[in-house]
């Protein structure tokens, strides 16, 4: 096959590209230029938006012996990922831009361009396993639970999966690093990236305040308890996420002395409601914008993962106009905007964006 290997400049995508070559594919490496102005996004060596990363990717392609190009997807990335991220936060939701990037950029804009240019598939360094099943190509968790990235791929549909390659499959990360060193890839000991690639220093709140400017829904407001009593002030709701405990800066301790968590964010009035952890417990999720890896199920007894590297919760799912997810194990700190990725065993069934949550009733 003719394969486009998306190379971020990190160790995983470099080894994935090398393995694709070894598997007999005709591989072309590309690095995605995602920032319109590299200086305005992250600087340092751990994102996927820096000149150093492009150079690292280029050197890896040299060592592997494949052609290499930079594809400018900065406009698409800005419109589909960065703007979405800002708009969602402005509405008080908590989006995951990595899923959005996979859905709209890596396995859409890049894949479409690759197919049009005569390629058959896009290979990335994600830790996930593709298998042929009765219903087409199946996406499964990688065996190395610590590295499993099936969650961020939960937005891919069958057509996208059919044109994807994840050559790292379920190889444990340490072996991938060893393999990179053995292959002479200088990125072998490059640190993993963790934060959102376009937010410098992982300071989401600071970044959002700067970028949203006039579009901020509010720049101050009250922090109240569940009875509505004001406990303190804050300088903008975009700084908060449901389930957050740190940085509330409340002068008065709770009557029971227990820590307080963000329970609710109301962007219009600028009100942040806090309360004890047990009041965060969620028993039901309502999801919208479903994406199915195979055919659309009508119901599912399986499990759901609600954040990258988060726990699995057993659940019962009914699919109609919305995706209704009843959690058998309650989840804590779940915010609208997060992605709920549904599993049947190790197999990804699909995903939905959480529109609303229902809390476990609390006795007062």
């Amino acid at each position, binding site marked *: 096959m003719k394969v486009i290997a998306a190379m971020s400049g990190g160790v995983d995508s470099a080894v994935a590209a090398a393995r694709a070559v070894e598997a007999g594919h005709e591989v072309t490496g590309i690095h995605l*230029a995602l920032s319109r102005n590299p200086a305005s996004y992250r600087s340092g060596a751990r994102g996927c938006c820096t*000149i150093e990363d492009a150079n690292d990717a280029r050197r890896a392609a040299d060592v592997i012996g494949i*052609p290499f*190009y*930079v594809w*400018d997807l900065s406009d698409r990335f800005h419109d589909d990922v960065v703007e979405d991220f800002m708009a969602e936060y402005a509405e008080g939701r908590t989006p995951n831009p990595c899923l959005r990037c996979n859905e709209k950029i890596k396995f859409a804009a890049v894949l479409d361009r690759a197919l049009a*240019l005569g390629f058959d598939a896009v290979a990335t360094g994600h830790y996930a396993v593709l298998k042929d099943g009765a219903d087409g190509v199946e996406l499964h968790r990688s065996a190395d639970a610590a590295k499993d990235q099936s969650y961020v791929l939960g937005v891919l549909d069958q057509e996208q999966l059919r044109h994807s390659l994840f050559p790292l499959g379920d190889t444990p990360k340490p072996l991938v690093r060893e393999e990179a060193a053995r292959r002479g890839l200088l990125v072998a000991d490059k640190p993993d990236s963790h934060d959102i690639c376009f937010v410098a220093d992982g300071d989401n709140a600071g970044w959002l305040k700067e970028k949203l400017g006039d579009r901020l829904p509010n720049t101050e407001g009250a922090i109240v308890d569940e009875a509505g009593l004001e406990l303190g002030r804050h300088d903008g709701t975009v700084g908060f996420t449901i389930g957050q405990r740190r940085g509330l800066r409340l002068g008065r301790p709770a009557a029971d002395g227990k820590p307080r968590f963000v329970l609710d964010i109301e962007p219009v009035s600028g009100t942040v409601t806090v309360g004890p952890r047990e009041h965060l417990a969620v028993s039901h999720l309502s999801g919208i914008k479903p994406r199915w890896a195979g055919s659309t199920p009508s119901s599912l007894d399986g499990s759901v993962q609600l954040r990258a590297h988060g726990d699995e919760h057993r659940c019962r799912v009914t699919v109609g106009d919305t995706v209704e997810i009843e959690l058998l194990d309650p989840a804590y700190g779940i915010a609208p905007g997060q992605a709920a990725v549904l599993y049947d065993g190790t197999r990804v069934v699909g995903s939905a964006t959480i529109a609303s949550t229902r809390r476990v009733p609390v006795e007062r």
Partner: protein
Amino acid sequence: MTAAQTPVVYLDHAATTPMVPAAVEAMTAHLLDVGNASSLHASGRRARRVVEESRETIAQALDCRPGEVVFTSGGTESDNLAIKGVYWSRRTEDPRRVRILATAVEHHAVLDPLHWLETQEGATVELLPVDDAGRLDVDALAEAIGRDPESVALVSVMWANNEVGTLQPVDAVVRLAATHGIPVHTDAVQAVGAVPVSFAASGVDALSLTGHKVGGPYGVGALVCRRELAVTALVHGGGQERDIRSGTIDPPAIAGFATAVELAVKEQATYAARVGALRDRLVSGVLSVVPDAVLNGDPTDRLPNNAHFSFPGCEGDSLLMLLDARGIECSTGSACSAGVPQPSHVLLAMGRSDAQARSSLRFSLGHTSTEADVDALVEAIGPCVERARLASR
């Protein structure tokens, strides 16, 4: 190179062109020689002799005096030296001289120093408009000078544009500037060897050229500048090169450079005729296969080796990649400093849209180009454009 490799069709001579055998010979003949050209002993004198003979060779080829040739590390350094060095010395002579006039289509080796002088050194830079072929609007230059001639430190107008190949009206520029005693610099990096270039006849005060565009080695070039023109040094040290450009002189590279310049100038007319015919074959071939392709730049008053097209509905990047996969090498002509390709400032200055600018490719021929190269491109371009159009939808 392995035998299995696809033969490369190299159509990017404006980026760099292979060294000519005579230049390789002249350069390698001195690689084992010892002797710093600034040393006083016999070895030093021998090294110095190589350098001075090379200087004389270049002076003869470009119709200037040997003392007017200042060796540098290449075109970018020559441009920086001319722009910054002349700006500083002219402003020192008269603090009112802070304006620098240049075309909007200069190479980044001129534009970036201008921008730097503007932000760091109080310069006022005026980038003059060009017509839709990329040629300087001479009336705009006359107006800009006439508005306040006393405040102009320098005028810089390239001899020929590196992207679209259009020749600039350097004569007219010199006439306008000379009335007010304003020095003129020209970046002639693409012009030497391609069109007749006489320093003396042109009347310019400073001219940049580089080795690797004329069949010489990388890393060596020259700024030809009149003895009367004061140039403030950028690099200080041992006082080499008229105290304008310090640093130990590189005799082997300079010998290779001089041989290449001598040969390129001597053979300019036959080269231009041969390569011009190939270029015409390329242009008509491409247009016959892709009738809606647009040839950019002046159709006739241009470098003989340059063909620059916009392919409507294509991304230049996609097209370049598809051609590269078939062993055909060309350029989008765009600056790619940060890895993110920007639409060409030259095409934007010519009034093209962002999309038009991004749909462009430059094919540039050279001394090793053949009819087979051109025919390979003409054969490949149709299907590649068709595919690239699919990818841009």
